[in-house]
């Protein structure tokens, strides 16, 4: 059947058709929908793990047990899963093991722009890279074959554009596979030095075989154009931009296998043209490889740089000196940055933090938007879980004075991912730190995924729920309390009390995400024009539903969900 599918949806279809049986992932834009979509097939067991390291270990265990298995994550997730990845390269697999890692060229929704091909090279694991939805499905199926034929995990590298673009896919039937036999093989699966030494020899031999495979693999493709004046070597989304910009003006070597890279294939292609351009997003890995194998008529990074995407306009401008005509208004168009939604439970909490003027050690999630105007209530955001551990370090460096005026903020899902180990450190190494867990009962930013605190699993079925209060107490934090962030004065009081306490404390700011379907909203509020004096106190909350028209506050009834924090904020009882 011919269907329009997101790259991620087609990836999931590929997993299904390839007979994949076990899936374990942690959500992360732009990778999330692979796991959400594959969970819709009853033949596949799929789960959200607490983090990427756990997820990859689950998938590896399933592979060793004889089931084709999969683990998906975003680029920074692979840093978390790097530990099992590097040794899974040595142990190899029993049934096929495929890993998706989604890079975010252009940083549409990420904290850095790392190129995950480096992980493939360093771990000596083959990496393949599709450039549209149809290839996503086909490459995944091929990835399982490569995994089993070469005894290795295989990484499929996605990008935001490939993951989140729909293109046409022809679906096929699922290949139902029996579990492979599990045979106890400590030389392969017990990676202690004596056995790992032998496996390292295997890994190097495997890389040689994979390089040979890359020379003739259908993953790599030469497209010769009779009119070509030069050649282009490209991969992933950049292939599509190249074809769009250059049409038949260039011959193209499309590399679907990005680790290991072929040698002779590239040498032969490069020898046909005087000039070869390497068009690859982020780092110059293919370009450097070309130079390493004696192909020196290449240019790439000096033209296209290391930052962001390389869309068709850039290629046309740089290589053909062509630029599209375009007009714009002679007018200042205000930017529209993302904001916390109307009724977002994080707003009340961040308003209190801003009011108290404390240092806020932040984390990854919707609440990172607390850093934006008008709340401006965040000092740092580094990576998943860093809010808590970095606060401890901050306080150890600056002592008691800092301890009484600094907090960490972290979401429920991020806390389960890698925040709780930081809290263990606070209890164990005794800093008087205040940690606020923003428990909105869901993984919000990536689009509402269940997590170990929500009481439901990926398929929506009831599951064990971690009790955050009891967990924090068991870790060794004696002062644990819960507040409702819709109640500003109660929240402010709790933060003040915990900051002044002489021991570590946890405040759980609990209120479900306003976008959750089961959350019942109050009727929208309206402003009484006779009572509103235009003091703009309500505007300090940064609610997108409130604006000022003719010097009076106005509430947009289509956005307001009646959370009431503006009502508490208004001293003139003008909101009701």
């Amino acid at each position, binding site marked *: 059947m011919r269907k329009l599918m997101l790259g991620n949806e087609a990836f999931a279809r590929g997993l299904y058709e390839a007979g994949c049986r076990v899936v374990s992932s942690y959500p992360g834009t732009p990778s999330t929908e692979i796991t959400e979509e594959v969970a819709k097939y009853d033949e596949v067991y799929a789960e959200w793990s607490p983090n990427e390291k756990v997820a990859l270990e689950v998938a590896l265990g399933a592979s060793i047990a004889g089931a084709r298995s999969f683990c998906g994550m975003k680029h920074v997730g692979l840093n978390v899963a790097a530990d099992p990845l590097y040794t899974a390269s040595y142990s190899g697999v029993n049934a096929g093991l495929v890993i998706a890692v989604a890079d975010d060229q252009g940083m549409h929704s990420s904290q850095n722009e790392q190129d995950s091909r480096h992980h493939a090279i360093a771990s000596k694991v083959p990496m393949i890279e599709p450039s549209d939805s149809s290839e996503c499905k086909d490459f995944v199926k091929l990835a399982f074959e490569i995994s089993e034929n070469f005894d290795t995990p295989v990484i499929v590298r996605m990008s935001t554009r490939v993951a989140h673009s729909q293109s046409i896919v022809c679906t096929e039937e699922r290949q139902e596979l029996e579990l492979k036999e599990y045979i106890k093989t400590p030389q392969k699966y017990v990676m202690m030095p004596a056995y790992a030494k032998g496996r390292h020899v295997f890994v190097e031999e495997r890389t040689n075989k994979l390089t040979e495979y890359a020379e003739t693999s259908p993953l790599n493709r030469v497209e010769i154009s009779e009119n070509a004046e030069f050649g282009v070597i490209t991969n992933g989304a950049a292939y599509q931009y190249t074809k769009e910009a250059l049409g038949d003006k260039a011959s193209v070597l499309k590399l679907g296998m990005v680790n290991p890279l072929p040698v002779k294939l590239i040498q032969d292609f490069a020898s046909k043209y005087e000039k070869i351009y390497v068009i690859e997003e982020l780092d110059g890995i293919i370009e450097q490889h070309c130079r390493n194998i004696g192909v020196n008529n290449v240019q790439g990074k000096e033209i296209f740089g290391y930052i962001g995407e390389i869309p*068709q306009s850039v290629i046309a401008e740089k290589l053909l000196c062509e630029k599209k005509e375009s007009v714009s208004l002679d007018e200042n168009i205000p930017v529209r940055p993302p904001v916390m939604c109307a009724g977002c439970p994080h707003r009340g909490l961040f308003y209190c933090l801003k009011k108290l003027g404390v240092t806020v050690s932040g984390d990854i999630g919707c609440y990172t938007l607390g850093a934006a105007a008008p709340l401006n209530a965040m000092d740092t955001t580094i990576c998943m879980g860093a809010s808590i551990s970095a606060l401890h370090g901050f306080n150890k460096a600056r002592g008691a004075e800092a301890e009484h005026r600094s907090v960490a903020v972290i979401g429920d899902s991020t806390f389960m991912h890698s925040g709780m180990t930081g809290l263990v450190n606070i209890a164990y190494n005794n800093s008087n730190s205040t940690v606020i867990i923003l428990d909105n009962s869901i993984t919000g930013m990536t689009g509402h995924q269940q997590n170990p605190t929500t009481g439901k699993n990926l398929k929506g079925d009831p599951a064990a729920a971690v009790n955050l209060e009891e967990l924090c107490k068991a870790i060794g934090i004696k002062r644990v309390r819960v507040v409702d962030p819709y109640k500003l004065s109660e929240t402010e009081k709790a933060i003040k009390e915990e900051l002044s306490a002489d021991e570590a404390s946890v405040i759980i700011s609990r209120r479900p995400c306003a976008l959750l379907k089961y959350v019942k909203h109050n009727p929208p509020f309206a402003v009484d024009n006779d009572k509103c004096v235009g003091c703009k106190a309500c505007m300090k909350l*940064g609610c997108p539903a409130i604006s000022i028209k003719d010097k009076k506050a106005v509430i947009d009834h289509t956005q307001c969900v009646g959370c009431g924090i503006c009502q508490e904020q208004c001293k003139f009882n003008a909101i009701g």
Partner: protein
Amino acid sequence: METKSIMIVGVGGQGSLLASRIIGNVLLSQGYDVKVSEVHGMSQRGGSVVTYVKYGEKVYSPIVEKGEADIVISFEMLETARCLPYLKKGGKMITSVQQIDPMPVITGVAEYPENLVEKLKTAGADVTAVDALSLAEQAGTSKASNVVLMGVLASKMDFPEEVWQNALEQCVPPKFLELNKKAFALGRSNI
């Protein structure tokens, strides 16, 4: 045929994903190669959201860049104005007249520009401005303004009505179908 480009712009949460799915479905049924590119993640939280739809004999790049859009469909006036540089010479803009203040306007550091429809027309754009929000509310919910704009779009494209109706049936959950068909009809007959 040459590849055609459509841009759908608006504010996160206004329903551009459904709109792009309806258009994608229509184009697929007509036998075109189609690509639709969406934005997920942080920008969806009330930020500017852009979706690209491209169709033709063979489509490569899924994204639309400055000077490339044959049609711009916009849910919000400021986003329409922001999008003007993407419009191809001779391209069409279909916009809702709805205005949603962005945070810099709410906090008072910027002003929402006035008379944008006139300014866009003066700049040479072919603009069709519709009160999609009121028409959607007339159909039964403010949330259907995306489908009202699909009705307007249908009136500007040469595809049979039944193709659009089929797309609605396939993309909209059954319990909201009647309401959305009404919204679509209001958009289509508004022009």
